[in-house]
């Protein structure tokens, strides 16, 4: 049963990720990315990461992707047709080759000793809000507070970057 669920979520995530990188329309790419993130949230549930699965759906598939869609609608982009220049295609082919080399290295690293690592049993409270929250407010209190400063800096930075200058508004 668990294997079946893993294959369902895994294939769903890979297929929607492939849809995302092959389309040219930003809205379709955004919706495919929402699907990928939802499938990944399913994987997190299989891994007993219940809090992270909920955060994945709320923060990623909810907040961040709504921000993306909002910007796509705001910009109203006209798609440009036509072929790429020759040098750009060569760059793309070289990039894809480098990534496939990286992929082969990554997958071969998993098989170094040839053994299959199975998951052990975990406690019932593994990955719940209580357990992760306790860790956040004790062992990782300082990084947690720094994260709030980071978010404040991001808010101020995005407001300053995106606001319209007064002198060029006419």
């Amino acid at each position: 049963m668990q294997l079946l669920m893993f294959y369902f979520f895994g294939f769903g995530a890979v297929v929607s990720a492939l849809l995302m990188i092959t389309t040219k329309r930003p809205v379709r790419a955004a919706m495919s990315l929402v699907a990928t993130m939802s499938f990944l949230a399913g994987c997190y549930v299989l891994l007993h990461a219940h809090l992270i699965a909920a955060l994945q759906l709320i923060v990623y598939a909810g907040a961040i992707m709504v921000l993306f869609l909002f910007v796509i609608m705001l910009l109203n982009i006209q798609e440009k047709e036509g072929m790429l220049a020759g040098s750009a295609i060569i760059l793309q082919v070289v990039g894809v080759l480098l990534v496939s080399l990286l992929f082969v290295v990554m997958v071969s690293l998993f098989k170094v000793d040839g053994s299959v690592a199975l998951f052990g049993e975990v406690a019932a409270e593994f990955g719940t809000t209580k357990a992760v929250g306790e860790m956040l407010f004790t062992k990782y209190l300082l990084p947690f507070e720094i994260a709030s400063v980071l978010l404040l800096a991001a808010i101020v930075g995005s407001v300053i970057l995106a606001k319209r200058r007064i002198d060029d508004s006419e």
Partner: protein
Amino acid sequence: MVSLNSYLTLGAVLFSIGAVGVFTQRNALIIYMCIELMLNAVNLTIIAFSRYLNNLDGHVFVFMIMTVAAAEAAVGLAIIISLFRNKATVNVDDFNISKG
């Protein structure tokens, strides 16, 4: 049973798809989405290792990565908006003003 290796392979596949997208797409918004996909693949790897080692620290790391991803998306989209305001395009090939 699902092994650790299957989750790591899934993470590697998703990361590679995201990296290929960064190289092949020309739309700045879709490139940002590919970067988000790569961050997600790393998150999956961290969660899988966290489950394997029976250790909750990985969940806190993923929490932090999500925070940074949200900040990055907000600032990056603001940059894209101000670029679009200057050139009326989001095609990355048209932005070569900092080329030497």
